[in-house]
């Protein structure tokens, strides 16, 4: 389900040279190039001395380039803003998400059939669980002091069960906000 902003944004979003595509640029060369590929932006421009390199250290980059994936535009701008309770802010924000997704899609070139997902690098370790006994606490006052709105021992929130305003109203609300 497209929202208007996303549709407008997504039509414009097909840069020829994606900026964050470390792995999508064609050239493997490490030399300074005039086309402005970010790899070479800070490469030393001085002639290298003729000192012998250690033979174990590879003299040229060893990465293989990966072809760019085509990707459907994100049609979930409103849904994500509601889930995250964070706004994209601008078209740039949506662009950023598309780039992030495109970058993430590079995962799919690797075959991971039969590989167990890793939740934690500590999966083989026996971790310590302490006894289910209260050993500290009684700090309600200290904690309540950190909050802006409290009444007695309660944190106070505005009324709930009211859905977040529609996108246009939200933009107005955020524009008028403090910052």
């Amino acid at each position, binding site marked *: 389900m497209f929202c208007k902003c996303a549709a407008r944004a997504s039509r414009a979003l097909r840069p020829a040279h994606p900026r964050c595509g470390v792995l999508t640029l064609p050239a493997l060369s490490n030399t300074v190039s005039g086309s402005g590929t*970010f790899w070479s932006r800070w490469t030393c421009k001085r002639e290298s001395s003729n000192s012998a390199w*250690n033979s174990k*250290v590879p003299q040229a980059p060893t990465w293989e380039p990966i072809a760019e994936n085509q990707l459907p535009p994100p049609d*979930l701008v409103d849904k994500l803003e509601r889930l995250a309770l964070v706004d994209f802010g601008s078209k740039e924000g949506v662009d950023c998400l598309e780039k992030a997704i495109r970058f993430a899609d590079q995962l799919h070139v690797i075959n991971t059939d039969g590989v167990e997902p890793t939740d934690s690098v500590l999966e083989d370790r026996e971790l310590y669980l302490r006894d289910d006994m209260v050993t500290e606490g009684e700090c309600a006052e200290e904690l309540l002091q950190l909050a802006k709105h409290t009444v007695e021992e309660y944190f106070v929130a505005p009324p709930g069960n009211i859905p977040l305003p529609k996108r246009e109203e939200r933009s107005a609300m955020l524009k008028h906000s403090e910052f």
Partner: protein
Amino acid sequence: MSASSAASRPAAAMLGMSIREVSQALRDGRVSATELCRKCINQIQRTLYLNAFITITEETAMEQAQRTDNRLRTGVLKDNFCTENIETTCASSMLKGYVPPFNATVVQKLLDQGAVLVGKTNLDEFAMGAGSTDGVFGPVRNPWSYTSLYREQSTEDPDSDWAITGGSSGGSAAAVASLSSFLALGSDTGGSTRNPGSLCGVVALKPTYSLLSRHGLIPLVNSMDVPGIMTRSVHDAATVLRILQGRDERDSTTVQAPSTPPSLPEHFDIRDICVGIPKEYHAPGLSKDTLAQWSRVADMFEQAGARVQEVSLPHTQHSIVCYHVLCCCEVASNMACFDGLEYGHCSKVDSSTDAMYATTRHEGFNSVVRRRILSGNYFLLKSNYKRYFVKAQQMRRLIAEDFKNVFRSGIDVLLTPTTLSDAARYSDFIQEDNQTRSAQEDVFTQPVNMAGLPAVTVPTALSHRGLPIGLQLIGQTLQDWKLLTVAQWMEQKVNFPIIHLHGESNERELNRSVRERTHTIGS
């Protein structure tokens, strides 16, 4: 260390000493705890232009110094470590004015050992970034861009030509590099301690995941975060590691530390060591200077009799993508706690809970944080979960397996670059957005976090621009001590220079101490 040469060192050079040397000076009575604390604070004041500090705790520091015995070490903490009664902001509007009611475990351990906290350092907002340029208090400047050497290279106005520190623990790195502090804590999730450590020419250690408690370290990615240690010598880093390591009741992901001798071995035979050079770490964009250093140090190991061998970590190239997904997902989850209700910034909008949350988070988070949250939420959608999050978790196993296989084949440590090049000029760095830069800058550091291994960056030389280049050593899990032993050997051989900030009045004295220092290390 020879006691006589240390005794002849002038007081003005105290700031450049290592923790070990300055502890000796305190014990010998050549300087008092309060004098030393005063010197550090003065140095901080002299280098305010670096913007390395968010909070300077001058009063409490001087008080602590008065009460302490000779064990004083001044330390600074990245501002994402909770410090009791001292503002902790994570360089974000969300936490401006937040004063934690407790100390992070590692902070408490330092204080219990007599460390004196002189300040909270600047960072990228919520530790998201590789430049220390995206915090609400502004960017941190690399102290090495204020040396005569750097100034000589540059034709431009120093105010527009300065280099970044790297990130996200840039303030901590700058504080140690500019001699304002003997030690600093940073955090390391994808390289956030090692990256600025390398660009600022200091030793930066990322311990094995689970060795140091994360309690009180405001989390970014729970399965990868570790507190990082920055010092000016490997020996100092080992000293601090020994204090901080160990199981914490308050952090169930900690383990008991392996038994550790009081200090690194003075005599150590490098011929027992096999160094692996992973070929995939020559990534596109690696600078000539860094490549030269990598080669130089590989040679050094080989000529000294160590076995040096090319190895392969086949999934390296894809690690950054995997990291990107897992990071965004865990960030989306962690940042959900910031809603304005219990702590931190709260918006004035009160029409509904959701409206208040949304406005609070809009006001409190910068665009970098918001974008990562949104990306994470995207990857975690039911329709995407398997395709992205689970896929990344599977990939993570492959990356960790790569390391396991290499270590199983007889390799003791891996030697790699830490960053692609020396520090970029700020004006160049900001030409690309945070996401792009993080993807570029973290290539060599984040695979280590994915596997939970220990790694340390050791400064090796200055680039042709006069800025530091560091190399990374990666060790096996829970073998931090062995890693540091090898790192110390490397440090002693490379002779990295001491910093001379432009216009320092005690420059000549520092010159003398450099010469003395290079003879005393390792004797």
